[in-house]
């Protein structure tokens, strides 16, 4: 099926590229009705899909801004004399249990639980105060009335319900809500903590890979996630390209893994950069819970939970960069952390690349496509044209050569609607939403 543009570009800062507006995380909620983005300036912007109207059956619901709030502020750690960035690293939604929406948002050090609720009525007709809220002179009150709720313009308010602070020495890279909906975990470079949503002043440390002597440190935690169905199981990935699956029933401190996933190294491809490019930047369970997907610098891999010694599928994202690794090391691009996502049926996986390109891989047909998220190419209702990178030899008309790629335009964060073919792609400070074209 073709992927169509929908006038999908939503810019929050106009045409100016303000550094604080750089989008740092994108996440659909469990129904896909809401789409949350976090940015470098500590703000969260939530988009809501408008209800499909019966009159315009062919017009899919657009996403419009629903709520904007400042989640985190910059802080100063006086003990270490360091500034703590307000950048939102991750947002994770809780499943909806009542009229309000709840999400977790985190910066490097502090996780917050936000409640987003609507208010469309307000009480009117108080006895002791007038409509402006001024107190009335009791002597003037001759009758009593019952205040009534009257409709008002819809107001969406976000309130911080919990603040989970002071539990991480290192930078938080992941948060994951447990399937029991009572607990969640937060992972930093060396430790993973388990929290109860109701308790903010303590957390359980479930993974600790900090060596006794920090000079012996050679490996860090890069991402972590709970199993979608088994509340005792989670995985975490490392900078050495390994994934560990842990069972919290085995022991309180999950330092010994239940399963250890690692692919043997290919000796013919070995170089000084082998370890860096094997570092896993993202790990995601499939919706089914049977597979995990990992992203390293050049590839996306799908692993079967029952097979630890190698992935079952490997997809090349941009292998033409393999010969450029030294330059990418020099300009630090080799340390870029790309995320990866599953579609709702686990049949297609998506990840970003440079030059505002993003890639999709169909696991069944083994076909892949490269698309671009850019203003020039996103006219309303336009169908995205597949892009191609020319790796050598004669460059065709529509192709772009490797040396022309813009490495400052990187797509690190993408999201896929839980059940429909709607994707959200963050390109620096622009958000693109693309939908399947309906005939």
């Amino acid at each position, binding site marked *: 099926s073709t992927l169509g543009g929908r006038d999908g570009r939503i810019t929050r800062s106009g045409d100016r590229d303000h550094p604080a507006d750089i989008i740092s995380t994108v996440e659909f909620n469990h129904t896909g009705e809401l789409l949350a983005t976090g940015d470098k300036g500590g703000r969260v912007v939530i988009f809501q899909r408008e209800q499909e109207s019966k009159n315009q059956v062919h017009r899919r619901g657009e996403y419009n801004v629903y709520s904007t709030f400042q989640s985190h502020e910059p802080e100063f750690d006086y003990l270490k004399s360091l500034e*703590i960035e307000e950048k939102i690293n991750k947002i994770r939604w809780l499943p909806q249990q009542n009229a309000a929406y709840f999400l977790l948002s985190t910066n490097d050090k502090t996780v917050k639980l936000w409640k987003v609720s609507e208010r469309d009525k307000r009480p009117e007709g108080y006895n002791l105060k007038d409509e402006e809220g001024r107190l009335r002179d009791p002597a003037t009150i001759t009758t009593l009335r019952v205040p009534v709720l009257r409709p008002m313009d819809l107001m969406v308010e976000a309130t911080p319900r919990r603040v989970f602070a002071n539990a991480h020495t*290192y930078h938080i890279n992941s948060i994951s809500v447990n399937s029991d909906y009572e607990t969640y975990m937060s992972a930093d470079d060396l430790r993973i903590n388990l929290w109860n949503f109701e308790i903010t002043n303590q957390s359980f440390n479930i993974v600790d890979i900090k060596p006794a002597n920090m000079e012996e440190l050679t*490996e860090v935690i890069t991402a972590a996630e709970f199993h979608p169905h088994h509340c005792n199981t989670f995985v975490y990935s490392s900078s050495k390209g390994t994934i560990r699956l842990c069972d919290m029933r085995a022991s309180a401190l999950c330092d010994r893994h239940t399963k250890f996933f690692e692919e043997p190294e290919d000796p013919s491809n070995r*170089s000084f950069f082998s*370890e860096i490019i094997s570092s896993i930047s993202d790990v995601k369970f499939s919706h089914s819970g049977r597979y995990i997907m990992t992203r390293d610098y050049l590839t996306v891999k799908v692993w079967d939970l029952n097979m630890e010694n190698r992935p079952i599928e490997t997809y090349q994202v941009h292998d033409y960069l393999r010969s450029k690794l030294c330059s990418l090391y020099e300009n630090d691009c080799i*340390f870029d952390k790309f995320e990866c996502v599953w579609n709702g049926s686990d049949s297609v996986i998506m990840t970003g690349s440079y030059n505002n390109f993003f890639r999709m891989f169909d696991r069944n047909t083994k076909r892949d496509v490269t698309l671009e998220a850019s203003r020039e190419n996103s006219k309303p209702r336009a169908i995205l044209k597949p892009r191609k990178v020319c790796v050598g030899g004669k460059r065709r008309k529509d192709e772009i050569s490797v040396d022309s790629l813009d490495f400052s335009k990187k797509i690190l964060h993408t999201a896929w609607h839980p059940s429909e073919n709607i994707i959200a792609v963050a390109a620096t400070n622009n958000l693109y939403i693309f939908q399947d074209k309906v005939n």
Partner: protein
Amino acid sequence: MFARGLKRKCVGHEEDVEGALAGLKTVSSYSLQRQSLLDMSLVKLQLCHMLVEPNLCRSVLIANTVRQIQEEMTQDGTWCAVAPQAAGRAPLDRLVSTEILCRAAWEQEGAHPAPGLGNGHTQGPVSDLCPVTSAQAPRHPQSSVWEMDGPRENRGSFHKSLDQIFETLETKNPSCMEELFSDVDSPYYDLDTVLTGMMAGARPGPCEGLEGLAAATPGPSSSCKSDLGELDHVVEILVET
């Protein structure tokens, strides 16, 4: 560490002196560029320490890369330095004292006698220039290398302790740093092709002989200088005595 037959530029099928010299020059070019990568990595680590709250993952990956380079240089015999001064550079001091974990890939391959090895043409001039053969290359753990004050003739300007490199780098202001690297003849694109081992059409034949010898070479000695000329000049700029 490197795929065999790929890490050295192939110099064709010549078996004369020029070919051998060209091969040696290419080998030194590899060492030069490996040194560049080491220097670049140390600069990155240094900048890490200057920054407020550095990214730990990035620092660990760079430090691991430095360690790998040092290990390979120790294998090659190019890493021959006095024990580092006890300084505040604690993490990097630890790096140089880790055990040698792996051998370079070419070493592990075993004996594939190269066509040119038994040939006097290649053996002669090379051995004149760099008398240390593979038999003499250190095989013992790092600690003895540190203590070894050895009668090694070929301590040229390549041999620097980690601290000396560090001092070299930190006494430079940023603009000097750029000049330092801008003097290097080879652009980083070449560094890419050599260091990532992506050499299209690498032909292992005539190179293997040189690999077997050159890997044990600690680096060009003063007797090499006249032969290497411009390359040595570049080397001097890089390491700055």
